């Protein structure tokens, strides 16, 4: 196998054939904004089927794997790219400019993964002001030694000369659709390889679902969960447990046992991976088609199942039960806070 690495030059005819094939391929670009790189890994996890995909598409821009730069994108004709996949929310000026540029060059833009779709976990930063963060990160973290109270700056002089710049931050992390128009969504943190392949299939077939969400189910996760059979018809929870407080048998519905699980409001299609190792759903596949605000809907679910077995409404008992839920914002809105009605309201002000 080693010899192949430094193998023979290609025949001329073979090369010409390749050039011809290239021109018929679907032209794509991939970009990451405020994300973690997990969406990129998920694409690689398509494994050997990736080769089939690579035969059909041309990747003109993809910072993690391809060496073209922003200037190469600028040089492309408008609307030349058939599909641009963008993951991550938008949190600084550079990302805002790049996605606007990509929008100009694209026929279709796909918000790929939870962060582009709803803001994702980095979107929890919208719970705090930038000033709070400044204080913590650059002044009060115990390992930081900063007596001069230095701070990164948009423009600065390097030691040894030369002016360099840093892109300014936006005050909030935004779902992609609040910055540019989005044609399609692929949910998940990250989307499963199966979801990605299904999404591509749907995209190529043109048989697009009404809500433009590709690759996931339109029914809730509970519909696909093996534990669902154990869920009583009339659910009533008297106290809630955190994941470290109680081990749940592998056949029991987690929510029925009092462990907060976002299954009822979350789209299926994720392969129930978390549930399979006895951990509850945190909602990364996003809300069901008829739900706008995931956290709000889950809150209403909780209200209806807490002490629901009581014939008379004993408020103090309900209050005690609700008090066992810690950090509802960070749990119910784990992936969707920037997309919530409350955060949108705060941002408008």
């Amino acid at each position, binding site marked *: 196998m080693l010899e192949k690495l430094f193998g023979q030059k290609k025949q001329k005819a073979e090369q010409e054939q390749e050039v011809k094939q290239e021109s018929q391929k679907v032209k794509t670009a991939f970009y990451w904004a405020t994300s973690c790189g997990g969406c990129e890994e998920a694409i690689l996890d398509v494994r050997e089927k990736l080769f089939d995909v690579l035969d059909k598409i041309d990747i003109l821009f993809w910072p993690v794997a391809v060496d073209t730069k922003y200037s190469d994108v600028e040089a492309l004709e408008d609307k030349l790219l058939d599909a641009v996949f963008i993951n991550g929310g938008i949190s600084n000026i550079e990302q805002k400019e790049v996605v606007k540029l990509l929008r100009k060059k694209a026929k279709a833009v796909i918000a790929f993964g939870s962060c582009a779709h709803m803001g994702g976990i980095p979107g929890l930063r919208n719970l705090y002001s930038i000033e709070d963060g400044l204080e913590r990160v650059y002044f009060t973290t115990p390992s930081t030694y900063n007596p001069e109270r230095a701070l990164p700056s948009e423009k600065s002089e390097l030691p040894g000369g030369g002016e360099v710049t840093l892109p300014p931050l936006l005050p909030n992390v935004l779902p992609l659709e609040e910055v540019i128009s989005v044609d399609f969504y692929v949910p998940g943190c990250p989307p499963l390889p199966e979801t990605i392949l299904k999404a591509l299939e749907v995209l190529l077939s043109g048989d697009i679902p009404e809500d433009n969400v590709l690759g996931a189910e339109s029914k809730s996760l509970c519909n696909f969960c093996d534990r669902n059979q154990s869920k009583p018809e009339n659910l009533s929870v008297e106290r809630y447990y955190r994941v470290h407080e109680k081990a749940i048998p592998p056949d029991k519905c987690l929510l029925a046992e009092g462990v907060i699980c976002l299954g009822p409001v979350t789209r299926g299609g994720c392969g129930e991976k978390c549930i399979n190792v*006895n951990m509850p759903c945190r909602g990364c596949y996003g809300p069901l088609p008829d739900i706008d605000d995931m956290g709000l809907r889950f809150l209403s679910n909780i209200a209806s199942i807490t002490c629901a077995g009581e014939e008379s409404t004993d408020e103090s008992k309900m209050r005690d039960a609700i008090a066992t839920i810690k950090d509802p*914002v960070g749990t119910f809105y784990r992936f969707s806070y920037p997309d919530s009605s409350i955060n949108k309201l705060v941002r408008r002000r």
Partner: protein
Amino acid sequence: MTRKIVISPVTRLEGHGKIDIFVSEEGEVLNAAFQPVELRMFEKFTEGRCAEEMPRITPRICGVCPTAHHMASTKCLDDLFKAEPPEAAKLIRELLYHTFMTEDHLLHFYILAGPDFVVGPDANKLERNVVGLLKVVGKETVAKVVDVRGKCRELMERIGGKVVHPVCGLPGGVSKPLTSEDIEFAKQIAEECVDFSKWTLQLFKEKLLPKYKDVVLNNNLKINTYYMGLVSNGNSLELYDGMLRVVNPDGEEHAKFNPRNYLDYIAERVEPWSYVKMPYLKNVGWRGVVDGKDSGIYRVAPLARCNAADKISTKEAQEEYKEMYETIGEKPIHHTLAFHWARLVEILYSAERMQEIANNSAILSEKIRNENLKIPEEGVGCVEAPRGTLIHHYVTDEDGILTKVNLIVATQHNLAAINLSVKNAAKTFINTPEPDDGTLNMVEMLFRAYDPCLACASHNLSIRDIVNFRVVKT
């Protein structure tokens, strides 16, 4: 007039960054900087969250090494709730960890850095990637990489639930026991990993090293720094547990400490030109972005770990470790491009560890959770991520709600050194005010040696200067 060359974005790494190079009219490089340009704020927005949810939140610092964050976080919870995991849980975690290390290092060698060496550093930029690699080496080799990586990730999914962003870690344990089928699968994969990592080392030593020896051993690209890494008994290289050991540029032990005491040894520097804080050795001090014994700059990640250790505990990796030092003829090795070699030695170590762990029958016990959790207060968790030492430090109220979080992550430790390496590379390779794409890629090759993860490095909120920095309203 000084000319400024901007490489933006830097490519084939994890995260967002750029390089600025300042060149005189005569083509002399005057200065250069490498800046991560993205910024999040994990240390702030995790305040108020439930501590036990951190293994499911912090992996979003980096989707390339989510398992490292998951594990540092889980170990931090052990410390926070004062709950030692039962033996089986510890073995399950370690099996997950070494499988992750193997596939992650492989990804870097073949997909991110490989194209420079195999396709060529100055090849057409549209070819200098995995597709180009495919054309040169053929589908068979790339298919092998994809296959081994895929199998590793399948095993990781069985253990951790999800492979990107695992969910199995709990304070004092894991959420699911393994079955004997899982272990049979693990044994088979471990063997394949051992074989493939040996094959990859052979490829590196026989084909790539001879071709690129002058670049790898170029003295202009050498920087003399301190090195840090976890070690176990007898100063063996360690990834999951142990003490942090620091050696000085001469290879002598400078410090050895329990990661819980990291604040006594490491401090972080804020510079106006960087969103990312730069750690340095507290008792050596910050002298700016310079190398040498008087500068507190240290390096982490594969080469640093090899330098900070005296040996490797597994048989075949130890032989490769010895050969690397004998061939290069120095210890510590200061040649930055030797990071690639050390990374391959580590793959073999992790693959051998997978074998050892899979063959330990204690892993099959059903006892996987220590349920005797104490009232939480403060904890520190530390692992060696593929890209270097990872420290998670949490403080909570008595309900286990986070009140303070501090994170020092892999690439952050290396940032000052990466800046030095990029500057050296620019000075070495550029001799015209208008260098071509291939030359600029040679500069990028130097940061790629570190396998930097800017997603990790930019986990903290990075903030504008209160006076000068514009916050843009949308």
